[in-house]
């Protein structure tokens, strides 16, 4: 009698045991190891690192394995792990100008010092299923060239030299930390960029796309997109100088956007900025477009009421861990609330039916 909600504990344990079995799949098929995921599903690993806000390819690969390939679930695992880690200190800001570029392209110039380097890209591949991959086989070696030694100059610096693009004022302020302070509005640009960098790729992409379709259009060109490793340095108080503690691969996108100028300023290009862990071009470009759209106020543009211009809307809904948690919580029992609604609607209906009956009788 009345056992519907009893035995919850055993049900949970059994569900988890079944989940574990499903995760493994057919035991006759060889098990994936973490290194295989890290090496062969690198772009999934990159996304988990970017939105999980933790640069650790091995942990990201482990999370993907544990999450059965559900990347948002994997991001969640990384976030929950990350939040317990002690903070040893902050690194010196990374210098993306000194990046060892695997890929660097500009859409605004045919060529530029440093060249157009396509790197390992899906661009210009024909999206035809490669059935050779289904069979086992050796991957042919890609041809090699000597890497550039000198740092690759930034495209926007060429424009900056002529005053054609708005200069970004340097700031020595410590940026706010989204993971240690509650998000409050208005949010400054550093905070907005932080939120976008860990925001859901699909959401940021959708927001960026909406600006291209006219909801807060900002005429972007990809001034430069670069992907590669940068050195992470940290000031060691005992030493009195910064030392390299490792490398991270980043994707950086700077967009060049049109700007009509104002009464006080002649027309000048403006920028949007995207920076993401790993090789994540779609995310970096999307981030730059949304960043630019959110800058309408400081650039004296009109509020067109576009979703991508609305910082509170964008930042409050960009986080897929918050969004998926709240969305999926409606699976939890709500029968107490529902019961109270049931009673109310029965009461209102009973009164309405009584009123109708009275009218009919008259």
């Amino acid at each position: 009698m009345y056992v519907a909600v009893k035995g919850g504990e055993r049900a949970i344990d059994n569900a988890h045991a079944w989940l574990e079995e499903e995760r493994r799949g057919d035991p006759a098929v060889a098990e994936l190891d973490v290194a295989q995921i890290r090496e062969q599903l690198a772009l999934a690993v990159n996304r988990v690192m970017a939105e999980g806000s933790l640069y650790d390819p091995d942990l990201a690969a482990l999370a993907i394995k544990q999450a059965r390939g559900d990347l948002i679930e994997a991001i969640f695992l990384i976030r929950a792990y990350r939040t317990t880690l002690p903070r040893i200190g902050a690194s010196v800001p990374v210098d993306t100008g000194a990046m060892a570029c695997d890929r660097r392209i500009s859409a605004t110039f045919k060529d530029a010092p440093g060249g157009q380097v396509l790197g390992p890209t899906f661009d210009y591949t024909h999206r035809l299923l490669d059935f050779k991959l289904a069979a086992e086989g050796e991957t042919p070696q890609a041809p090699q060239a000597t890497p550039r030694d000198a740092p690759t100059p930034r495209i926007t610096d060429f424009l900056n030299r002529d005053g054609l693009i708005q200069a970004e004022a340097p700031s020595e302020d410590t940026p706010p930390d989204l993971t240690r302070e509650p998000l409050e509005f208005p949010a400054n640009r550093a905070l907005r960029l932080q939120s976008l960098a860990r925001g859901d790729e699909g959401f940021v992409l959708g927001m960026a796309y909406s600006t291209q379709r006219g909801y807060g259009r900002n005429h972007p060109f990809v001034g430069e997109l670069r992907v590669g490793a940068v050195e992470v340095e940290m000031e060691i108080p005992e030493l009195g100088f910064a030392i390299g503690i490792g490398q991270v691969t980043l994707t950086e996108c700077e967009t060049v956007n049109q700007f009509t100028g104002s009464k006080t300023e002649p027309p000048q290009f403006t920028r949007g900025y995207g920076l993401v862990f790993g090789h994540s071009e779609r995310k970096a470009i999307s981030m730059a477009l949304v960043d630019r759209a959110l800058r309408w106020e400081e650039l004296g543009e009109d509020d067109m009421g576009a979703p991508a211009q609305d910082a509170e809307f964008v930042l409050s809904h960009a986080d897929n861990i918050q969004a998926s948690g709240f969305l999926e919580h409606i699976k939890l029992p709500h029968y107490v609330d529902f019961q109270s609604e049931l009673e109310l609607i029965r009461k209102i209906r009973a009164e309405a039916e009584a009123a109708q009956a009275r009218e009919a009788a008259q």
Partner: protein
Amino acid sequence: MTQNVQYNFAYLDEQTKRMIRRALLKALAIPGYQVPFASREMPMPYGWGTGGVQVSAAVLTPGDTLKVIDQGADDTTNAVSIRKFFQKTAGVAVTERTGEASVIQTRHRIPEAPLTEDQILVYQVPIPEPLRFLEPRETETRKMHALEEYGLMHVKLYEDIARHGHIATAYAYPVKVEGRYVMDPSPIPKFDNPKMEMAAIQLFGAGREQRIYALPPYSRVVSLDFEDYPFEASKAEHPCALCGATHSYLDEVIMDDAGARMFVCSDTDFCAGRRAAGHLGEMGVPVEEDRT
């Protein structure tokens, strides 16, 4: 959590607990005011009680006895999961008996048994802002609270009456605290609203929305209404089929394919306690038999 990692007592690190305790003290000092706090990512999803869990983690001491309920019941899946979490990470004693608990974490209900000054009731809150569905912008609603501008809420309640003849809010029914802040009591049925004037400390945690608010003991908590349409704490017009209680909040359980119903106490501990004391409803069996 199958890995053998040693976590700090009640999972959160001491710095984080201190940050949460500061927010709790501020919240208690300004009853009904929503204090922003730097909510952490917990190992359970946002929307599943992360706010309540963080508040509980910040107030729990090794000597506490914890009770966790969801929909009034100790054995609903998420209550089981949260209780297990604290057993694992804090090693505190747990109980299903309301009277034995020093900290009670709840979702959607207030226990039927009156709480005492020695108890803390922690609520899980999904949307802390009572004005949210009238005005989606946080920047606006914070201004409205600051200016005590609650006209919009009264207009909403008035429109309900004009349209339905009743205030069409059955749960998360807004209250005014100490004559100042309008507060969301979390999605408890309005039947529970009058219980909020109580001896225990009430703490509200909204993890995803990064807000904490609180009611000190014996705070004045008034459910919003009109003189000619006074607030009414309603429940199903039945006695509990198991324990015969006529004054407890009831769940409606569908019994068979023909849609036969039974009504039973949503507060499982309250119901079991009454049956143990010999009260039996029309379908009730003594507790001992039920547990075998």
